[in-house]
Structures are given as structure tokens and as C-alpha cells.
């Protein structure tokens, strides 16, 4: 089914990268429409090639991972319950009377918390946190880097997670299992958080975000407001005590921003307003948000959900699945909300928005249909064949396999990782023998980490697309750049020098210093931003990854840099 696979790959690429292209058919203007049509086309291709419609359909449905779907649902439910119990009010009161910044230790701890929790899916923590706003309420210039760093760690920690992490898929192909790969990914994620914050700051300061010095009103950061794909107008200092927007009736929409979004910004990718994922409940069951309930109810709810996340992350997975812990925690949270804040369980369940769930499900159907039609098979085989050529060679193939999930981001990285891990493994001693055992481990680590990092920026069910957070204009390119620049070189450096900490720290410092140099050059006044930054970061990352993962040579580094430049350019063009 070569022709069908080629067409399927083309359809998949077009569906995920045609966000900026003007499409004449009105029904295809929205991403949901494009994903639906692309999924139908892929299923049709698979059916024509196989001569059977049921088998591809069954394969597509079987590929849908239940963990992220259930995790997203429980995360959204927790967000609703935490909001109804007044957690946002507790947080803001703790910050003081003038919208003061939190202590710096708290900010850093929140940004790195997902790595300590190490959940098998970032949605349960990420959705609840973004929706209830532990990172909200700060001025935009401070909240964007913090929120971006938090998003990077939350939607990336599913790779090295001890219970059901994506890196576990590489167990069969990596010598000695995936323990070293998971440690390498954790090391890379720690530094990627700081890099993401730096990129977000540079993007916000460089004018990639409209009104970078404005303060985002609290109501626009809370999910109960109508979040538009525009930056809100500047507002005065945060009004306290906080008045939460009522759950009934129309909520205030942020004013449209008169300043145009630069063409290179990702905000231009979705011209239509983002649907409010937390619509205000209507009808007889609608009740106002209980802003007058005791602060202890909010604290208790926060403690219950925190304990739930800890249990889900570190419990014995052979006895109780993480999802079971999350479901039990959501049940306990419902009880706290029912008795403490007078929120009926039926009301909480009814307030969970269906839009994000539909979006992520459609993304899974698209990925499953692409897998059934052989798109990933064709891409993997093509990359393994390319490794035998003079260019891109094994170093270039390593980079292309590793970065492919980032170039084609899906709603969850698990499908792409499961489809591509065998091809990455076949580059090593157990397959074609083009890479050493260490190079194969680096390729597997990079692939599974990029897969985990890709879901947050995916237009098909990614966190930023689901939330419609106004800060995403700076967050999305920052998340892309940090993933592009750190996943490869830092995992490869860890796997090469994990027994020599001084050399490893030196290599990590080299990576950070080179990124800071690229940042300074690409975001200097008058410099070309966006595309130049992506290409510069990718060239540095490609050369370093090739040198760290394979035997260092000038030709190998040059091949890595060339493939990196290609990947950076592709990423910049695809995200326009």
C-alpha cells in the first residue's frame, strides 16, 4: 500500500500544518472540520488499499489511548470543582492586597512541580492548574514565562513518568531498559523549563505578543470568561478582593486588541475566536459560584487533589492504576464541593466542558487513521532508508526520527511514539546497525521526549488549543523552541556522560550558553525574529546532538546542523 501510504502521509501533514493557509470552504476553516475531513480521507485510503472498511476502522479505534482522554476529563472535572470551592480566591488572598508577586521560591516550585509529581499524563495537573489559575493573577510579563515553564514541565513529564510514561515504550529496544532514558529526559526537562521561560520572555519583549506590558485581567485568565484569541486591553492594577465572574449570565469578554499580531506569530494561525471551554451553565440548575464559602474549603480541596496527584504518580502501578487514583480523588473532591460549597455532583459533572474532550478525541482518530493508513510506516521506512545515504546519514536520520513528533504534533504523543519507536530501534545494533547502542538510546530518548513535548502545542487537541489562553501567543513558539533546542542535545549528553558529572554539566552549560547566544542574536533589536530563532536554535541543537550521540566528527556535526536547519525552517513555516 505504498501509494496509499504516501497519500496518507501527505493528508496528515496537510491537516496538521495548514493552519495558516486560507481555505475557501467555510466548513474547513476550523481545525475541527479539517481534522474530521482528513480522518475520513485517511480511513477511505486505508479501506481502498486493504479492500476492507472494518479492519482500518477497528485499528483506528484500537489506537485511541484511554489514559490521556480519561486524564483530561478528570483534570477538567477537578478544575471545575477547585474553581467552585474557591481555590482561586484563596490563592489571590495569599498573594497580598495589591496583586503582589508570590515569593520567588513558590514561583519556581510551581514551574518545576510536574517533574516531581511525574504523572503519566500532564492533563490532570495542567488543565486543573491553568483553569483554576495558580499561575494567573500576575502581570503578563511575569506570568508568561512562568506559565510557559509550567506548561513545558507539565506537558513533557509524561515521558519520564515512572508509572506508564511514554519512555516505557522503548524498553524493548534500549539496552538495559529505559531507566537511563527516563533519567536523561528528566535532566533535559529540568533545563528545558528555564529555556522555555527565557524564550517566552524574549518573545514577549520582542513584540511577538500584543501589549506585552499589559496586565491580563483575572477574569480573562479564568476559564469561566469568554476567552478570545486576542490580547486583552491594558487594565489597572489587579482589583482585590477578587470578584469571580458569575457562572450565570454573560461573562465579560476581554476587549479586542487594536495592535495587529505579527505574521510570524502563532496567534495568527487561528483567526477565529477560541470557544470558551468552560461555558457558564444555564437553565434551572445554574447556580452562582460560591465566593462566600470558607477559605478552608478551598484549601481542603487543593490538599485532596494534591494528595491524589501524588498517589497517582507514585503508587504501585501493578496494584492500582493511576487513573483509579485520579477517579477516587475526583470523587473525594466532589464530596468536598458538595458539603463545603453546596455544589451538587450533578451540577459539577454538567459543568465539565465537552469541547476539549471532542477535540482531543478527534485528534486521536486522526492519528489512529493515519497509523491505519500506513502514514507513520512510510515515514519511518523512509527515514531508515535515508540513514544509509551520504546525506542525511545516520546523524541526520537520528535527528529526523527524533524530531518528527514535534514537526507533526498530535493531541497525544503516544500514537506517534508507538509507531516510530520500532524504526528508531531498528537503526541500532539490533537492526541496521547504523547507530551504536548509545546513539540508539539517544534517538529513542529524543523521540519519546519530543512526542511527550509535542501534545501541548498540537492544533489537534493540544492544551493551548483547548484552553485558548490569551498568553499562548508567546507560549507556543517558546515551547516549540525549547523542545527543539534541548530535547536532543541534553538527552544525548546525559547518555554519553552520565558517569562523568563534571563533563555532563559542562556539556549542559555549553548547550545553555549557545541557546542564550542565539536568543541574544535572534531577538536583538532589528533582527529577524521567529524563523531566524527557530533555525538558529535547530542548527545548534542538530550539531550538538549529532556530536554527542554519535562519534564526534566535523562531517557528522555538519550533517546534524543541516538537518537541524531543515527542521527549524519546517517548524517555523508550519506554525505560521
Amino acid at each position, binding site marked *: 500500500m505504498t501509494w496509499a501510504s504516501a497519500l496518507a502521509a501527505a493528508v496528515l501533514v496537510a491537516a496538521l500544518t495548514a493552519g495558516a493557509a486560507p481555505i475557501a470552504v467555510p466548513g474547513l476553516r476550523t481545525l475541527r472540520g479539517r481534522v474530521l475531513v482528513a480522518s475520513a480521507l485517511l480511513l477511505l485510503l486505508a479501506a481502498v488499499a486493504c479492500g476492507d472498511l472494518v479492519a482500518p476502522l477497528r485499528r483506528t479505534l484500537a489506537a485511541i489511548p484511554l489514559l490521556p482522554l480519561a486524564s483530561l476529563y478528570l483534570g477538567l472535572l477537578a478544575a471545575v470543582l477547585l474553581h467552585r470551592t474557591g481555590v482561586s480566591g484563596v490563592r489571590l488572598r495569599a498573594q497580598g492586597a495589591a496583586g503582589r508577586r508570590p515569593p520567588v521560591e513558590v514561583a519556581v516550585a510551581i514551574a518545576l512541580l510536574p517533574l*516531581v509529581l511525574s504523572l503519566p499524563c500532564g492533563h490532570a495537573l495542567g488543565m486543573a492548574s491553568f483553569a483554576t489559575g495558580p499561575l494567573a493573577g500576575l502581570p503578563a510579563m511575569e506570568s508568561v514565562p512562568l506559565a510557559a515553564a509550567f506548561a513545558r514541565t507539565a506537558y513533557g513529564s509524561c515521558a519520564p513518568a515512572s508509572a506508564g510514561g511514554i519512555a516505557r515504550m522503548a524498553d524493548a529496544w534500549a539496552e538495559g531498559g529505559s531507566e537511563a532514558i527516563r533519567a536523561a529526559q528528566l*535532566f533535559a526537562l529540568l533545563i528545558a523549563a528555564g529555556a522555555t521561560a527565557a524564550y517566552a*520572555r524574549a518573545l514577549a519583549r520582542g513584540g511577538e505578543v500584543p501589549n506585552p506590558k499589559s496586565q491580563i485581567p483575572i477574569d480573562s485568565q479564568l476559564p469561566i470568561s469568554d476567552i478570545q484569541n486576542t490580547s486583552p486591553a491594558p487594565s489597572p492594577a489587579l482589583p482585590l478582593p477578587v470578584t469571580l465572574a458569575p457562572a450565570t449570565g454573560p461573562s465579560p469578554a476581554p476587549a479586542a486588541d487594536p495592535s495587529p499580531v505579527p505574521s510570524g506569530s502563532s496567534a495568527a494561525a487561528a483567526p477565529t475566536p477560541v470557544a470558551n471551554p468552560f461555558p457558564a451553565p444555564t437553565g434551572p440548575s445554574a447556580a452562582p459560584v460560591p465566593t462566600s464559602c470558607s477559605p478552608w474549603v478551598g484549601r481542603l480541596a487543593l490538599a485532596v487533589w494534591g494528595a491524589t496527584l501524588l498517589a497517582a504518580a507514585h503508587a504501585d502501578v501493578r496494584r492500582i492504576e493511576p487513573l483509579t487514583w485520579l477517579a477516587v480523588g475526583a470523587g473525594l473532591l466532589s464530596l468536598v464541593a458538595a458539603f463545603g460549597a453546596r455544589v451538587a455532583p450533578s451540577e459539577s459533572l454538567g459543568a465539565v466542558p465537552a469541547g476539549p474532550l471532542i477535540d482531543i478525541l478527534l485528534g486521536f482518530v486522526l492519528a489512529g487513521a493515519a497509523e491505519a493508513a500506513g502514514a507513520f510506516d512510510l515515514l519511518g521506512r523512509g527515514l531508515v532508508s535515508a540513514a544509509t545515504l551520504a546525506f542525511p546519514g545516520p546523524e541526520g536520520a537520528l535527528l529526523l526520527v527524533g524530531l518528527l513528533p514535534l514537526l507533526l504534533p498530535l493531541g497525544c504523543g503516544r500514537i506517534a511514539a508507538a509507531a516510530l519507536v520500532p524504526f528508531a530501534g531498528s537503526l541500532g545494533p539490533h537492526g541496521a546497525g547504523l547507530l551504536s547502542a548509545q546513539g540508539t538510546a539517544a534517538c529513542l530518548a529524543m523521540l519519546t521526549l519530543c512526542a511527550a513535548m509535542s501534545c501541548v502545542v498540537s492544533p489537534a487537541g493540544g492544551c493551548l488549543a483547548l484552553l485558548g489562553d490569551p498568553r499562548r501567543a508567546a507560549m507556543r513558539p517558546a515551547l516549540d523552541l525549547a523542545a527543539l533546542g534541548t530535547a536532543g542535545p541534553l538527552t544525548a549528553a546525559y547518555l554519553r556522560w552520565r558517569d562523568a*558529572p563534571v563533563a555532563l554539566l559542562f556539556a549542559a552549560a555549553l548547550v545553555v550558553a549557545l541557546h542564550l547566544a542565539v536568543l541574544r542574536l535572534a531577538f536583538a533589536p532589528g533582527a529577524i525574529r521567529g524563523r531566524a530563532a527557530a533555525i538558529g536554535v535547530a542548527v545548534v541543537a542538530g550539531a550538538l546532538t549529532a556530536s554527542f550521540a554519535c562519534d564526534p566528527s566535523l562531517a557528522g556535526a555538519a550533517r546534524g546542523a543541516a538537518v537541524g536547519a531543515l527542521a527549524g525552517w519546517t517548524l517555523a513555516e508550519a506554525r505560521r
Partner: protein
Amino acid sequence: MIAHLLLFAAAGACSGALTAHSAGWRAARDLVRAALAGAGMGALAALTVRGG
């Protein structure tokens, strides 16, 4: 094990300081506190993996 913890603590310190600096904390005292917090979180995160 100690080297493993120290390694991740160092990475966390670097990340914490970079994050805080990017978020607008520029005083040296703030950056030191951020680095210490990052080191603590990095060491805690290191406990979730064995290091291979």
C-alpha cells in the same frame, strides 16, 4: 546516588535561576533563592528515576 542527586540539583538550580530571571526577578538575592528552590525541586525529581 549522591552524585545523581547533585547532578539533578545543579540542573534544577540553573533552571530555577533562569526561570526567575525571565519572570522578572533580577535581584541577586532573589536569584539565589530561586536557584536554591530549583535545586531542591531537581533533587526531589531525581528521586523518581534511578539514573540507569
